């Protein structure tokens, strides 16, 4: 009997049917004569690079105990399983029975993503409010503000024109140096 570690990356499409998939997979593992020492269900993670055009995958790590003869059966099953993006079956000296760093990392990443979403929603709400108030202000200032707007656009134009001149000067000078060479 040897110790094995099996890491699976399951396709993201299976997320809704994930529990069913896992149950049937556990069953087939025990049928092949593997004992499951520990299962770590990491969940959805961003892949570091796309695999078969998938950007996310569901990670599971199994710690198994089994005989070398049943490994080829398992390999055969994994090879032709369409719901897997990738798998890695390693022989290990000893099982790690506690959760790996990945679980913690994934939880943190998900938290960050949620916070980002919440922030975005907040900002959007704020912007919407600002827009609403701006519309009101515009309506109120409609008779007073147009002068200010025009003056500001004029200033902008002048500034950009100055920049253009500077650019031209630089070009000329560079050409001159080339000629000298």
């Amino acid at each position, binding site marked *: 009997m040897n110790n094995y570690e099996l*890491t699976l*990356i399951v396709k993201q499409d299976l997320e809704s049917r994930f529990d069913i998939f896992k149950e049937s997979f556990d069953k087939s593992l025990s049928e092949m004569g593997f004992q499951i020492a520990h299962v770590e269900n990491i969940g959805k993670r961003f*892949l*570091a*690079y*796309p*695999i078969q055009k998938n950007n996310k*995958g569901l*990670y599971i*790590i199994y710690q198994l105990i089994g005989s070398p003869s049943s490994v080829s059966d398992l390999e055969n099953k994994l090879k032709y399983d369409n719901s897997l993006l*990738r798998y*890695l079956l*390693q022989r290990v000296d000893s099982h*790690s029975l506690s959760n*790996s*760093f*990945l679980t913690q*990392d994934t939880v943190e990443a998900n938290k960050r993503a949620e916070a980002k979403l919440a922030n975005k929603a907040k900002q959007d709400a704020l912007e919407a409010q600002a827009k609403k108030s701006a519309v009101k202000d515009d309506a109120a200032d409609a008779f007073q503000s147009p002068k200010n707007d025009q003056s500001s656009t004029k200033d902008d134009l002048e500034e950009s024109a100055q920049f253009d001149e500077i650019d031209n000067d630089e070009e000329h000078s560079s050409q001159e140096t080339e000629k000298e060479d």
Partner: protein
Amino acid sequence: MKSVKLPKKFNHTNLDVLKQFITETGKIIPGRVSGVTAAQQRKITQSIKVARFLALLPYTDQHK
């Protein structure tokens, strides 16, 4: 050289450890630069390669 934190036990899932030993472009930092012992460097290299296979670390920064 920046100091590195290397726990006694680690494997391909300890991304916070392994990320210290890859460059911004995803290359493995050579042992003569990383300053760890040869045995440690061998283990780091293997772990990074496994982590790459499992899409936990990038092979390069040019993945689409």
